[in-house]
Structure formats: C-alpha cells, structure tokens
C-alpha cells in the first residue's frame, strides 16, 4: 500500500501532511473487490445513500418543526402547505424511512443467504445488528414527532412495554415519559434523541465500513479471494455499478414520493393526537409488524410460554423479551451456524430453510398488521415459534448434519476458463452434476 505519486502539486502538498488522498486511493482504487458480486451487493451502499437523504431532509424539517404537543401537528401541516417544497422534503423523509428499512432488510437477508456473518466477518455482522437496532430506535422516535393518533398511541404502547420489567418497570416508564403519560416532555426528548441518533448511526456505519474493508466483501460463491485473478478494484467497477443501482432505487423510491406518498402510512396519523380517544386498532409502522406479532404471540395459553416460562415471568414480559430477542439472536448467529460453508448455493438444506425463514417473516408481518383475534393468534404463535426454532435449532443442527456440495477452487478460475455466462452458472454447474 505504497502512497501513489500525485501529479498535482497542491494535492501532493496536502497529502504529505494529511494523507486523505492516499486514503481514498487505497480504499477505492486499490481496494480489491471480488469480481463476481451480484446486484444483491448493491444494497449496502444504497443504505448509506438513504441515510444521507434522511439526514439532509431531516435537518431541513427540523428547521420548521415545533416539538410541542400543542403545535407539533400543525407545524407539520405548515411544512406540507406553506413551506416552499415542504411537502417534497417531508414526503422524502417519510418514505425514506420505509425505503431505508426495505433496503436494510434486503441487505440483511443477503447476508443470511450468503453467510456473510461467518469468520472473519463476525464483528462486521454484529456492528450491522447494532446499526439495525439504532435505526429502529430512530424510526420509532421519529414516528412520534408528527403527533398524530398513531404517533401518540404507538408511543404509549411501546413505552409501556418497559413496565413489564419486574420491580423497576413502572419507574422506568415514568422516567422515559418525563411524567405520568406520553406528553410534552416525552415529545421534547424524543425530538432531541431523534436528531441525535442518526449521527450515532453515521459513526457506527463508519466502524461497519472499517470492519468491511479489513477483509473485503464476501461474494456469492462464498470462498475467499485467492489472488489478483479473483478481484477487481472497487473503483471504477463497483462505483459505476452502485451508481446504476442507485438510479434504479431512486426511480422506485421517488415514484412513491410523488405518486403514492401515503402508501406506507396509516390514515389515523393524519388525525391529531387525542389522549382521550384510543383508535380502534393500534398498529406500528409496517417495518415493525413482524416484531409486533412476536410481542403479541405471548399469551397465557401459548405453549412455549405456559410450558417453559410461566413459572418465571408474566406473558407480557416474555413477549417483550422475545421481541427484543428476535433481533438479539442475530448477535449470536456467527456461532450458532457451525457450517464452514458460507454461501447457501452450496448448502442444499440451508437454502430451503432460508426461504422458509423469509416466508415466516412475511407471515409474522401479516399477523402483526391484523388484530390479535381468531386465527391470527395461533398463526402468529406458530410463526414466532418457527422464527426462533430457525436460529436456535435448525441452523445449529444443519451445521452438523448437512452435507454441503463441493466448493469451486477459486472465484476466478471457473469464470476465466468457462468464459461468458455468469459466475453463478459457471461455478455451480459442474458441482450440481457431480
């Protein structure tokens, strides 16, 4: 990693004292990237771009927003009606939150499919889970700010979850609220924290990138790069590919902003918060629905609870722990999955279970969107059980019993020999015949 000779004397002068240009050269022009990344690898940089869009639009919104229960709702409507292009900025921010979660969920499931969490990328994965948790906190806080009915009642339901903690639960909730219900002090601190957390997010993302650049991206085949024939420099190959992907992303994202800006929202949030009137059906934003379903799965007659946990805690507390546990379990995934093979392409059984998990998450989301009654109760309980069984039972067992297909010897070899076609078919075909 010798420093390049810069021709421009000003750049040379600066770089000698502050090696930003050497750094950029090293991390972009020299940074070796597997040559066979598919478009599923676009979503990491997309998430970074959405974060920038969110911060930029959020800073402008904060200039016009009033974090007071008496004015918050109207100040948002003032942005929509009287601020120049305020509607555009707010719809970008509102739909940006949904876009952020779509992009990040795809990014996470790509990691699950291709075993991106395995050695030596365990910390990279764990930092990613920290990013997800920070994002979720930020999104929850932000949803409260417009002070609509769902803002208020969502905040009431979620903060009340902490009351399930034995002994100190109630004092914690009072402390979170800054009073005895969700009220002006709550709104004030939520605004403050909603402004703070995105910058924390930027910091964690930088650490995520540092961990990424230590060993570089994984790849669809899941074997390490074994020499220059396996990799290409990030710039220009992946910069241009990411730019194209960004164009496609913005086409979809902006279609929603301009033509269906309230598609992902709840109509109830256009009714100003009213502490005296509970909406008939409180639902969180769509990206929290699977977690909401897990929370509500824990009833007194849910066997997993009544057989194993009822002697220890209330169903409410078990639900809260399970909801947070559904994400915390991801922290342990690198050690729960003992299979030495990364990519699901060479793991015939894991691949099936991956798709089942994805379907399970959609089922959880669907249950979370519906009232907890009738068939939705047992469907949610089955789906919750399966979610945890996937990570705690199926994945560890697969690591022991699954017989993976033989791996190709290198990333580049089959490509360069076979010529033409995608790596996927070129690399996998001989194995499938064997």
């Amino acid at each position, binding site marked *: 990693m010798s420093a390049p000779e810069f021709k421009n004397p000003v750049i040379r002068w600066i770089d000698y004292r502050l090696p930003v240009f050497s750094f950029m050269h090293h991390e972009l022009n020299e940074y070796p990237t597997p040559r066979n990344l598919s478009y599923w690898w676009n979503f990491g940089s997309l998430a970074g771009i959405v974060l920038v869009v969110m911060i930029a639009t959020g800073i402008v919104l904060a200039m016009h927003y009033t974090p007071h229960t008496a004015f918050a709702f109207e100040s948002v409507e003032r942005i929509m009606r009287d601020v120049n292009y305020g509607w555009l900025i707010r719809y970008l921010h509102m739909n940006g939150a949904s876009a952020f979660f779509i992009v990040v969920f795809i990014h996470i499931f790509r990691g699950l499919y291709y075993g991106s969490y395995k050695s030596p990328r365990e910390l990279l994965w764990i930092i990613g889970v920290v990013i997800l948790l920070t994002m979720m906190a930020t999104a929850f806080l932000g949803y409260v700010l417009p002070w609509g009915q769902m803002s208020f009642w969502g905040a009431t339901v979620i903060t009340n979850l902490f009351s399930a903690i034995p002994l100190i639960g109630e004092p914690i909730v009072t402390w979170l609220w800054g009073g005895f219900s969700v009220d002006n002090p709550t709104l004030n601190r939520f605004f403050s924290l909603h402004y703070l957390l995105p910058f924390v997010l930027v910091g964690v993302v930088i650490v995520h990138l540092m961990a990424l650049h230590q060993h570089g991206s994984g790849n669809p085949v899941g074997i390490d790069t074994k020499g220059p024939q396996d990799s290409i420099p990030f710039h220009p190959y992946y910069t*241009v*590919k990411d730019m*194209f992907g960004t*164009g496609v992303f913005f*086409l979809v994202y902006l279609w929603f902003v301009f033509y269906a800006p309230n598609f992902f*929202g*709840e*109509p109830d949030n256009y009714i100003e918060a009213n502490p005296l009137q509970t909406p008939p059906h409180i639902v969180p934003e769509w990206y929290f*629905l699977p977690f909401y379903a897990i929370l509500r799965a824990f009833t007194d007659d849910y066997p997993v609870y009544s057989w194993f946990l009822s002697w220890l805690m209330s169903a409410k507390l078990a639900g809260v722990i399970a909801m947070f546990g559904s994400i915390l379990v991801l922290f342990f995934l690198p050690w729960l999955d003992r299979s030495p093979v990364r990519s699901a392409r060479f793991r015939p059984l894991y691949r099936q279970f991956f798709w089942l998990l994805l379907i399970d998450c959609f089922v959880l989301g669907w249950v979370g969107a519906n009232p907890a009654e009738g068939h939705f109760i047992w469907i949610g309980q089955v789906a919750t059980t399966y979610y945890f069984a996937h990570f705690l039972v199926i994945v560890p067992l697969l690591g022991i019993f699954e017989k993976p297909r033989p791996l190709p010897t290198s990333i580049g070899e089959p*490509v360069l020999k076979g010529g033409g076609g995608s790596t996927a078919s070129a690399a996998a075909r001989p194995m499938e015949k064997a």
Partner: protein
Amino acid sequence: MMRNAILAACVAALTAVASTASFAAEAVKIPNQEWTFDGLFGTFDRGALQRGFQVYNNVCAACHSLRLVAYRNLQEIGFSEDQVKEIAAAKETTDGPNDAGEMFQRPARPSDKFVSPFPNDNAARAANNGAFPPDLSLMVKARKGGVDYLHALMTGYKEPPPGVTVPEGMSYNAYFPGHAIAMPPPLSEGGVEYADKTKATVDQMSRDVSTFLAWAAEPEMEARKRLGVKVLLFLLILTGMLYAVKRKVWKDVKH
C-alpha cells in the same frame, strides 16, 4: 428467471403486507369512483372545486371546521382576489388584544385560516348532541378509502335493514364504521343553489365537496404530480445512461 420470479414474489408479498396494514378491519367494501385527479397527470376540476367550496361553505361549515386552510388558499382554486376578500369578510373572527387590552371581533381577512363554527371542542359537542364534528382539513387523508369513502359516506344514508335499530338522534349509514352515525344526512336535493347553475343533485354535491376536500387535504397534489413526471423522466434517462456506462466499464471483465 428464477431469481426474477422470487424477487417478484417478494415484492408482491410486501405489497400484500402493506395493504393489509392499511385496510385491516375493513368490513364494508367502498366503491371505487373515478376522479379527475386520479392518475399520473390528474388535476382538480376547477368547476368542481368551486362548487365544492360552495357546498362546504353553505352546508358543512355549519358544524365542521377547516382550520388548516386559509382564505387566501382559495385563489389557488380559481377565485379572484376580490372574491376571496368577500368570502373572508363574511365571517367574523376574534382578534386582539387591542390598545385598550381587549379582544375584539372583526371581519376575517384572506390571510386568516377558515373561521371555525365553534369556539372550542366542548362547544362543538354541546351543540351536537355530544358528538364532535371533526375538522375536515385532512379528512381525505385521515380515512381509509380516502375520497371514495367520503363520497360513499355522504351518499350512503339508507333505511336501516330489518332487525337493525339505530339509537335516537343517529342515522343509519351503509359505509360508516358501525353504521350508526351522529351526522344527519348532510345533503338534500337542491340544498345548494350553484353559482354556475349546475343541477344540485345529492350525488353532484357529494362529488363536488369531496373534490374540494381532496384539494384541502392535499393542496400540493397538482404540483407534486407535475414535478414527479419531470423527475422520473430525468431519472429514467440518467439510469439508462448509467447502465450504458456500467456495461462499457465492465466490458472486459469476465464475471
């Protein structure tokens, strides 16, 4: 191919989740209506907007406020500056305190928000048998089914089906959740004499005032759709060019 199919399935499932999220617990099917402001290039019909304002002003405004809309906004739907001044001046609003420290009444000005029919929510309830007539500024965005629901509600007053009793002082409405609605049928044949001589049927008035309230909820809609076309066309061309650049850069890389 397989990959595309899976991707399509995921998108479809996601859409299904999102739409169940927003239409959950929807018992009655709301009929789809055609509106001039539907679609990528939709605009509000100015005639319908002005007639709709007349219906709001003569009928709805007796009970329902429109507190997020200002009189000056009426110029956006084709009223002249003088007409707006006249419309505003017909309402009295409280201002002050004056130099003597007293609040006083004065005619509303174009810069004022629509004057609410009641001084506060309690007064509104007291005058309406305990029921609160909600503000209409965001009604189209605040109800599942949006503007279609509004039209269905206003034209959905019927005799209750056999066996269904409606509490005293309430009316039966086919589309209101629970069917018992405190608002009496707001529109009656010829209830408004339209300035442009359009025949004021219940259906006509309902469509007009729905259009007006759709505008009140989303006054930016026309600007949004106009800008959207330009932005998406630009992006489409840019993305196409980026794809060409990507192809060119990757030409010599076997992958």
